[in-house]
């Protein structure tokens, strides 16, 4: 029997607003527990929420970038349930009328591009955190995160396998980071997702019963959780049983999903319109201003890099794949006219280092200003390309300033021709047989002399000057 998988994703994106969705509380990460909490975040008796318009503007950017309908009038609802880290006993969310309606996004798959439709994207407040392992027999509650604005992006069930799910997640991450509405930091929980998985016989029209896997926060785990879940469901159906609609939790240590609660045990959230908040209306002027100031997206960047900077399309794609990489590229290009050289370094050495360490550029020690300096030192002949490579490796490890590394290690390129001539002459003097052979027509030996000079100068000699000097001396 052959099976077909149907997957839908709900991605929670933490919007990078300064203050929370309904209060003036800070959204900063990593503060002491319960220090970024104001009266509203605590849900004290008598407090009222006030909607943060910046969160709406950021949500609208996402909508515009995914060709979505924008609901210029959107409303808030309450989702009622009890949990210690949910201070009010309800979450304020957008059920009936979300800010962003139907949209779509293109993802890269093994079989080429695929369009995934997005059902909706709505604003809601995040909950706090329950800390179970810090106090014996007790649970701690940290409300710093409570009230942080989330954009929940809900896809249609149009994703066919784990690789596509990861590609979709990556595409969403790329868009939200380019739009500057989320830092994309998955380790800090800035993006998390719930995955709905069901299987059906190939060719069937009706959807199978789905299981929802909650709260996954890495590409690797999305892939593993989905593959594990597909195998589990196939096994159930093939053994004659049926899949139960339920919420499951992915255990990354055991690499398995396990049941959290079944449909029968599911909460009745008793949604109703939040009476404390009037509908939020976005004016045509506000919408137009957001439209006119939409940051450049990857596709536009690639086009510009190819048409205006003459990069190869493959180079442009690698550079425009991440916001950080594109930033590094554009910063460095400001310091040199040789954009091709900048691209060559990023696509070549930098990408190689990323691959070697299996990390994203955001996780590396390379800052845009430091990289720009490295390129500047190459183009102003302070260091050679070869030295630059070792400087980059040094930066990669320590994150130290390029100029400081060059100075500390004495890597400044030797330009002084009298110095280079002296070195070249001593090489010639010490290798009479090679000189003879060269002069007898063994042209290939020229490389030997260059190599010796470079070795003698620890690679610091300007290669162009060395060539000229040796040519002159060996005539």
């Amino acid at each position: 029997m052959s099976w077909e998988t149907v997957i839908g994703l709900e991605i929670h994106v933490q919007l990078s607003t300064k203050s929370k969705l309904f209060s003036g509380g800070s959204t900063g990460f990593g503060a002491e527990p319960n220090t970024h909490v104001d009266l509203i975040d605590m849900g004290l008796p008598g407090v009222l929420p006030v909607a943060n318009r910046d969160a709406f503007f950021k949500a609208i950017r996402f909508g515009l970038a995914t060709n979505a309908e924008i609901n210029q009038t959107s409303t808030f609802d309450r989702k009622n349930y009890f949990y210690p880290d949910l201070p009010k006993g309800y979450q304020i969310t957008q059920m009936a009328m979300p800010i962003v309606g139907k949209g779509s996004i293109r993802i890269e798959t093994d079989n080429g591009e695929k369009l995934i439709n997005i059902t909706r994207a709505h604003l809601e407040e995040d909950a706090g955190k329950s800390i179970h392992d810090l106090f014996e027999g007790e649970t701690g509650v940290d409300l710093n995160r409570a009230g942080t604005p989330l954009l929940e992006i809900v896809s249609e069930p149009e994703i066919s396998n784990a690789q596509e799910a990861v590609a979709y997640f990556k595409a969403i991450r790329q868009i939200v980071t380019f739009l500057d509405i989320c830092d994309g930091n998955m380790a800090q929980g800035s993006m998390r997702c719930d995955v709905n998985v069901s299987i059906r016989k190939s060719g069937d029209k009706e959807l199978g019963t789905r299981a929802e896997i909650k709260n996954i926060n890495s590409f690797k785990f999305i892939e593993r959780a989905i593959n594990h879940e597909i195998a589990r469901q196939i096994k159930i159906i093939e053994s004659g049983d049926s899949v139960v609609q339920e919420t499951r939790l992915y255990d990354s240590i055991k690499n398995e999903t396990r049941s959290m609660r079944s449909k029968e045990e599911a909460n009745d959230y008793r949604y109703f319109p939040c009476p404390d908040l009037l509908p939020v209306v976005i004016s045509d002027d506000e919408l137009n201003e957001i439209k006119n100031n939409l940051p450049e997206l990857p596709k536009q960047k690639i086009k510009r890099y190819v048409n205006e900077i003459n990069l190869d399309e493959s180079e442009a794609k690698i550079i425009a794949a991440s916001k950080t990489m594109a930033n590094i590229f554009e910063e460095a290009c400001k310091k040199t006219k040789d954009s091709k050289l900048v691209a060559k370094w990023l696509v070549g050495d930098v990408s190689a280092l990323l691959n070697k360490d299996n990390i994203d550029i955001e996780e590396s020690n390379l800052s845009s200003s430091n990289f720009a300096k490295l390129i500047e030192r190459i183009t102003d002949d302070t260091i050679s390309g070869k030295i630059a490579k070792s400087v980059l490796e040094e930066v990669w490890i320590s994150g130290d300033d390029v100029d400081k590394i060059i100075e500390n290690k004495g890597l400044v390129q030797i330009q002084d021709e009298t110095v280079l001539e002296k070195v070249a002459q001593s090489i010639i003097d010490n290798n009479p047989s090679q000189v003879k052979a060269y002069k007898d027509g063994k042209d290939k030996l020229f490389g030997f002399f260059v190599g010796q000079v470079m070795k003698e100068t620890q690679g610091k000699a300007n290669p162009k000057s060395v060539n000229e000097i040796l040519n002159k001396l060996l005539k």
Partner: protein
Amino acid sequence: MSIRYKTIKELSYMLKNKEISNKELIEETFKLIKDNQYLNSFITLNKEKALEKASNIDNTSSLLSGIPIAQKDLFCTKDLRTTCGSNMLSDFIPPYSATVIENLENAGCISVGKTNMDEFAMGSSNETSFFGNVLNPWGENLVPGGSSGGSASAVAAGLVPAATGTDTGGSIRQPASLCGISGLKPTYGRISRWGMIAFASSLDQAGPMARTAEDCAIMLNEMCSHDPKDTTSIDEAVPDFTATLDESIKGLKIGIVKEFDLSRLDNAVVKVFEETKRHYESLGAEFVEISLPNISLSVPTYYVVAPAECSSNLSRFDGVKFGKRSMDPINLEDLYIKTRSEGFGDEVKRRILIGSYVLSAGFYDAYYKKAQQVRRLIKNDFDEAYKLVDVIMSPTTRGAAFEAGSKGSDPIQMYLEDLFTIPANLAGLPALSIPNGMVDSKPVGVQLIGNFLEEQKILQVAHSFQKSTDWHLKTPDGDKA
């Protein structure tokens, strides 16, 4: 010189003329409160701070400067216990003050204490308070009405000239009527809800309770403000509500609601109402019968919307962050169950249950959604009516104050107490009650409902009545000199 039963205006005059000092006024107030403790109208007193403020009054520009005011215990008061009449909050000390409290205190008012109330403002007799029943000074074992029963009782007994109240379905007007004082519920959104502990957010509105409509206007001037902290607060200029009080009501059109079947009321109440109509005619007003076709659906609509919102608003009282926490729960669910079982009284539990039911999956459309649609129809009925009349008049309550315990066993009977007052909340309209007669030696009130933001009009109509009658001057001790 006695300060008992004095109005804000009178006390302000006495202070200005140095007939009494600020400190003496406050000391005298606390003496009155102490001598009348049997009323149980206060839950918490603010004596020390009140006296301190009285000794340091510098703002004498406002009529309210130095005036003792009682605050309903539903408004958060910084560093002063705020219980909402509930065991759940019996030791809750807020770290902030409600906007309306700040507005009044900035105008020079002195908050002397927090008044008793039905638990979380749910009740019409002040019998649901965790802190015990409040008594009506007009008779033995009489209820003061509710939920702002403590405020009404304290003003009626002449302990303070005015108090704050809140009105979700009649909680200012009904106790005002039963205690023989004046009370106003403004247009929804006139007064900020920031710091008011929510019962039903789309209906709750704070307002003044005082001896006269004029004092209500004086209070209202300071209570209203556009507050960015409350997005439902109305961004409209606040007029001087006292400015038009003395304007003539000649030619004014007063609507009488055809669908309010007065034949089912106590004869004596109807008689008082008819006399009031005649009095207004003598002042030059004209009565017009109007129809509010959907008005009979008000009580059932209210008892869907209000419990629904309350069931959600009261979820935060879970024993985790503030308020009561049950000791020794065996697990998280047990913590919730025990805390809420012990912390809430029967009426609050009843409404949480009703509210949870009408919002639950499968019932939402039939109840909550339908109720919101009916609410819109009721609002439309009023909009049509105000094309024909300036204000709408009705009795405030079905009768005078009743005895404690007399309606306790049947919640429906209690819910019908708010028959005449609920429509103004559903439609968000301003409405007030002033005393207009006596039934069995107990006061009753008449209600005036105004159009959207037309507090000035109903205050003017009420003031014209009080200028030419003396019902508002009656006290439990006899007529006021």
